């Protein structure tokens, strides 16, 4: 119990004194997971919408694969991305292993199926009659897709929250492809594991509180947008 109190006090001290190491870690985590979420949106939204609107043989199989992908274990992604990015691997020439770019790549792979799956569900929830009606009234297909995505935009914010929340708190892949290098690839979660390993439980607790505050802040903002329908 005294440790928890000490952790909260340490968290407040780190925040109030503007500890530069902690803020660098916080900022890196935010950048990496933010960029990875954007990439997963760029890939997942069109793919999810296409999957919702198109009918083709084997579609059920693809949808099942996407749903499985929503639960993709981050360590598995970490392992395969590491193998790809190894100097001896197919993407070795990029030389991005143990850099933030590698973490972005792995996290985007983790988040993309989540975004895709939720987009798929959101778009399918727009009544099919509505779509047919639009086409009947003379809308072109791209126009119809645009309107459907607009209708589904509020549930799709859930995709952003789920994707971002999943990867900012992810540890396995960040550790494997990033390497937890101080000042370069140390994120909130990998720093937490390291500090726990060192026995610095106060700092680990402080970092976990910061992570919770960060995730809560992002979700609060998105939820406010979603619920007030200002967008």
């Amino acid at each position: 119990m005294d440790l928890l109190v000490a952790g909260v006090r340490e968290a407040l001290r780190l925040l109030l004194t503007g500890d530069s190491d902690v803020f660098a870690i916080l900022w890196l985590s935010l950048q990496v997971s933010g960029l990875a979420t954007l990439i997963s949106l760029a890939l997942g939204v069109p793919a999810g919408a296409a999957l919702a609107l198109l009918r083709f043989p084997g579609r059920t199989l693809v949808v099942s694969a996407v749903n499985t992908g929503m639960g993709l274990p981050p360590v598995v992604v970490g392992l395969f991305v590491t193998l790809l990015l190894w100097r001896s691997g197919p993407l070795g020439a990029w030389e991005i292993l143990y850099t933030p770019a590698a973490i972005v790549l792995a996290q985007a792979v983790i988040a993309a199926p989540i975004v895709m799956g939720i987009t798929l569900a959101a778009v399918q929830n727009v009544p099919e009659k509505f779509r047919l009606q639009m086409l009947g009234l003379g809308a072109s297909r791209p126009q119809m897709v645009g309107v459907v995505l607009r209708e589904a935009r509020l549930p799709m914010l859930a995709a952003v929250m789920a994707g971002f929340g999943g990867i900012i708190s992810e540890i396995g892949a960040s550790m494997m492809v990033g390497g937890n290098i101080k000042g370069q690839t140390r994120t909130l979660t990998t720093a937490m594991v390291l500090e726990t390993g060192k026995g610095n439980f106060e700092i680990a607790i402080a970092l976990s509180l910061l992570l919770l505050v960060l995730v809560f802040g992002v979700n609060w903002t998105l939820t406010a947008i979603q619920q007030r329908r200002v967008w």
Partner: protein
Amino acid sequence: MARIAAVLLVIVLGVAAAAAPGPASRTVILSTTTSTQDAGLLDVLVPIFERQTGLTLKTVSVGTGQALALAARGEADVVLVHAPPLERKYVEEGKLTKRRLVMVNDFVVVGPESDPARIRGEKRAADALAKIAAAGARFVSRGDKSGTHVLEQSLWKQAGVTPAAPWYIESGQGMGATLGLADDRRAYTLTDRATYLAFGRRVALTTLVEGDRALLNVYSVLEVNPANGPRVNAGGGKAFADFLLAPQTQAVIRTFGVDRFGQPLFVPIAGRKEEDL
């Protein structure tokens, strides 16, 4: 739609910029053990190295077994580890070259104050382990092919015991977590002194066996054979190895930890031979 296209373009450009290969020779990858990182030594040494040479050092802290395996595949340029038998094997195979001693500290056998197997003050670590096995007292092993685990296995061999459950517990985790587990189960464990000192105030374990020559913890630096894989930065690896052995660096190692623990965590031994330790 135009706005979305613009955002996508920025993302693609950003990723491409991040992914663009930098000049290879400026980046050096060091694969090393968790203990050097957990003790905080690398956090002190790496910035000095980068300032002196203008190179960027990436440190991958893993178990000694994995650190050596990565280097043998050419995924690293230089290795700092503490498992002499394994190191010699890689040198014999020609995967790693120029093994040089850097620093030393020692391992200790720690356990609960009550000392159920009565090993306190035992001169030889192997004898102490034999007693633990005979008493069936709990012992927590790293079980992760780390340098500590490699030494522990050789001690069991010397003791003539094949450790097994239920009294033998494998944590599969780093030294810090393993000490925590040993504390919780009131078990014995083998630990490097640096991590034990760092954890000292957290656990109720006490030092029971120390000072045996077999408990010396010798750290060596090894360079990677460029033939191991594409893109091995042999020059950069040599630069870091030379840096570790330079007199100024050795002086930093000699005083490291004094401010936090009241005693140094490592003794620098550049230029000495194993037989003389």
